[in-house]
């Protein structure tokens, strides 16, 4: 039985590591107004550089730390120079998307270099423990605490006492004014990214030693935890980030003590949503402030959408329908079936993120809701699959909209963070609600797709069914866009304040967009579940959410034809060229980076 003292110490240690991440995120937000989703990947790189230093070069601890600081600091400078700076004048969500692309690239590179298997980082400090009262503190605990305090003090001294520290603070207050007064803002950004990344890298090594295990995939969670800490403390607030981190560490530690390890992240994300809804400016926010003007929450580059001539679209559809009869390749047909299902997801997200401007990063949760609803109704109650498909769509629409509704009052980056958190919560509920979802085992033996009482096993039949559904719903979406709702949603996206000033209630229309889009995603998830006959909590993960966003951006935000084209390009092409799975994620990351940088309006233009 571990004592409360131990839980408190554990919480503070974890909090300290979160703080190393969150302080960096807060510094970067301060000068760049950017939430850096690649931050956790830098932490992974730090952990692996540390592993190489300890295991291969066999360096002593202080040298290990120095190597990590130097390497990740440099990485930060590279990220700033090539990933962020070129996007200085782009809409604010653009650099955020770029950092997501970067995180895919970094994580995947680490995975390709070091294999996805977990590795142990040898601890370089003695394993003594000091007994205090009912618990104990280890040397590593003290070391992590010491490094945290030292880093915070050094950072404080740097910001308050040095010339560049002043420049950083001036840039954070007003970038343009700082530039006008002769501050080299680029240099400030470089310094901040270097410091932030070095702190993140140190966090990676320490956590590797603390848990004695590192994996290439641990970066995503680290990013999320850093962001949660930062939001709790108030985005961009450095001391707030430290307090928020310690608070998060304690909440998680006590939560785990009460309910068990699998609830750790649930506490973190529920805390995130609670803070976003109740105190979106963080616990230490000053008085209420006017929303900034003009709004830049959207990622919609002004462009004339390409007008696809109707005969061309009809011809493409005819080819798509005739394809199974022309080509005898089950593999190709299966791949394209997948592409149609991703097109449904792309249509859903292009409506929510493109047309309505709510850049959702948790869209895979809608697939999961649809998939689980349909799979469970069909397997447990034996309902016909055509009906459960429909119910899956409605469930995703209803439950999804209800879950996201607290985020309707948020804008810009906060929408993305909140939807990401809500998506994680859905996955964690599926994992932990074993009596209904069968927990980590997942749902196996899901009945096959069926239509009019006939089970569909034939690859071609499933292909036609998927295509017909997708085409039908795409037409429905076109009809929506040409109605008054089309202009209303786009008005909300372009300027929500002006829209409200003309009587457009944001809750109502954001809700409609999520419901309509949720239905599409739910159908797609349900279809997938019956097609594969097995799903679990990892079937619809965050990578799929990001892939959906890449599809929407590639096609052109809000563009119906674009979403379909984007799905065929991103799902079909890598499959046809048989790109290995780990390179495929790398490819998605690079595609996202290049798109945001060079063609933000996508292939067919934004609508």
């Amino acid at each position, binding site marked *: 039985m571990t004592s409360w003292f131990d839980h408190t110490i554990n919480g503070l240690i974890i909090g300290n590591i979160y703080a190393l991440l969150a302080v960096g995120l807060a510094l970067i937000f301060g000068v760049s107004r950017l939430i850096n989703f690649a931050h956790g990947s830098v932490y992974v790189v730090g952990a692996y550089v540390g592993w190489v230093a300890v295991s291969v070069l066999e360096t002593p601890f202080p040298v290990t730390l120095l190597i990590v600081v130097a390497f990740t600091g440099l990485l930060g400078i590279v990220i700033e120079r090539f990933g962020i700076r070129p996007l200085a004048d782009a809409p604010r969500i653009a650099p955020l998307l770029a950092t997501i692309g970067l995180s895919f690239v970094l994580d995947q590179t680490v995975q390709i270099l070091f294999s996805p298997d977990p590795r142990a980082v040898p601890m370089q400090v003695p394993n003594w423990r000091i007994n205090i009262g009912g618990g104990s503190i280890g040397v590593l605990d003290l070391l992590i605490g010491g490094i945290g305090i030292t880093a915070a003090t050094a950072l404080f001294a740097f910001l308050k006492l040095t010339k560049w520290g002043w420049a950083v603070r001036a840039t954070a207050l007003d970038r343009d004014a700082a530039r006008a007064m002769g501050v080299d803002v680029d240099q400030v950004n470089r310094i901040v990214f270097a410091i932030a990344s070095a702190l993140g890298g140190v966090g990676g090594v320490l956590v590797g030693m603390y848990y004695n295990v590192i994996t290439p995939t641990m970066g995503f969670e680290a990013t999320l935890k850093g962001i949660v800490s930062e939001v709790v403390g108030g985005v961009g607030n450095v001391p707030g980030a430290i307090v928020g981190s310690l608070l998060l560490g304690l909440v998680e530690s006590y939560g785990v003590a009460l309910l068990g390890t699998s609830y750790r992240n649930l506490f973190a994300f529920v805390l995130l949503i609670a803070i976003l809804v109740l105190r979106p400016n963080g616990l230490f926010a000053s008085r209420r402030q006017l929303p900034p003007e003009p709004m830049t929450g959207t990622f919609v580059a002004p462009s*004339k959408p390409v007008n696809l001539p109707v005969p061309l679209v009809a011809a493409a559809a005819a080819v798509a329908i005739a394809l199974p009869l022309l080509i005898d390749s089950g593999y190709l047909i299966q791949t394209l079936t997948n592409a149609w299902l991703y097109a449904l997801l792309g249509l859903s997200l292009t409506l929510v993120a493109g047309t309505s401007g709510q850049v959702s990063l948790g869209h895979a949760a809608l697939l999961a809701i649809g998939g689980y609803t349909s799979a469970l109704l069909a397997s447990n109650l034996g309902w016909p699959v055509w009906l459960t498909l429909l119910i899956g769509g409605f469930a995703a629409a209803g439950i999804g909209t209800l879950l996201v509704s607290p985020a309707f009052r948020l804008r810009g980056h906060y929408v993305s963070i909140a939807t990401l958190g809500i998506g994680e919560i859905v996955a964690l509920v599926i994992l932990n609600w074993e009596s209904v979802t069968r927990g980590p085992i997942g749902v196996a033996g899901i009945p096959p797709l069926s239509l009019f009482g006939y089970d569909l096993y034939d690859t071609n039949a499933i292909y036609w069914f998927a295509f017909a559904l997708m085409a039908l719903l795409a037409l429905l979406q076109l009809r929506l866009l040409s109605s008054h709702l089309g202009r209303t949603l786009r008005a909300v996206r372009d300027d929500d304040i002006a829209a409200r000033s003309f009587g457009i209630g944001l809750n109502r229309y954001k809700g*409609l967009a999520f419901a309509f889009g949720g239905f599409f995603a739910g159908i797609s998830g349900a279809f997938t579940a019956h097609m594969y006959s097995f799903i679990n909590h990892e079937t619809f993960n965050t990578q799929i959410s990001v892939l959906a966003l890449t599809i929407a951006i590639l096609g052109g935000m809000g563009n119906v034809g674009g979403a379909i084209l984007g799905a065929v390009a991103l799902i079909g092409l890598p499959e046809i060229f048989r790109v290995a799975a780990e390179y495929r994620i790398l490819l998605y990351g690079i595609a996202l980076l290049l798109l945001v940088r060079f063609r933000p309006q996508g292939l067919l233009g934004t609508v």
Partner: protein
Amino acid sequence: MNALVPNPALDAPHPLLEARGLVRRFGGLTAVGGIDLSISEGELLSVIGPNGAGKTTAFNLISGLDRPDEGSIRFNGIDITGKPPEAVHAAGLSRTFQHGRVFANLSVADNVLVGAHRRLRAVRPPWPVIGPLAELALALIRPPSVKAEEAALREEVREILSIFGERLLPRIDQPAYSLSYANRRRVEIARALASRPKLLLLDEPTAGMNQTETAEMLEIIADLKARGQTILLIEHKLDMVMRLSDRVIVLDDGKKIAEGAPLAVRNDPAVIEAYLGHGGVGAAAAAGPASGDSVRLLA
């Protein structure tokens, strides 16, 4: 609650808009420090003052974009103090924005149609709870009543745009981001008119316009006024204010320093001082009737 207190400054017994003791502070700065303001139906009231006088902040308080720290606002018989912008709009108030806030990716026609959003009846049944779903269903199914409503509104959009002559009509299907700055301001006004507001708030409608365009805008506003439209105007071009206004309020440093007929305000020493600073008072007074012109030039 204050509506019953008689106010000798008013001509009409029931003002359409009545704001009392509005205060808004930003940290240590008092942007609006106790402003009273009222406007009767059919009136054109101008608010002038140097930059930073609190004009736009006062506008934001009235239109619901910002909440006053103190004071009350009644509009059309309803207390709208601290109400959100959609509620204020529902009560019958439409506004334009100082820096122009058109929907950049929407066409001119769609921008104006958004202005008529609240007038959509057939497609927005006022049912509780299921109203939004009914709206979605009607938008997708489009029964004849919905089609007719949309067609009628599109016809009306052309009429509204025609008050700007050939400025906007040829560009009706172009996205707003492709318009000139002046044209975007016109779209904003058209959008506000499409809502058929009881009170129209215009925040510097001629900012960034040249002389010809300003003269044209003056004609348009005069025309709206002649049609009985109640208008609250913020404007820097005093010339225009003098010609259009029934009444003028002068703000300086968050406070009302003068109120009255255009000519009286124009020659008010406090106003001249606010615009020219202390050094200018003697000179402006000595210049006599010409002082108005010097004010305009400097403003």
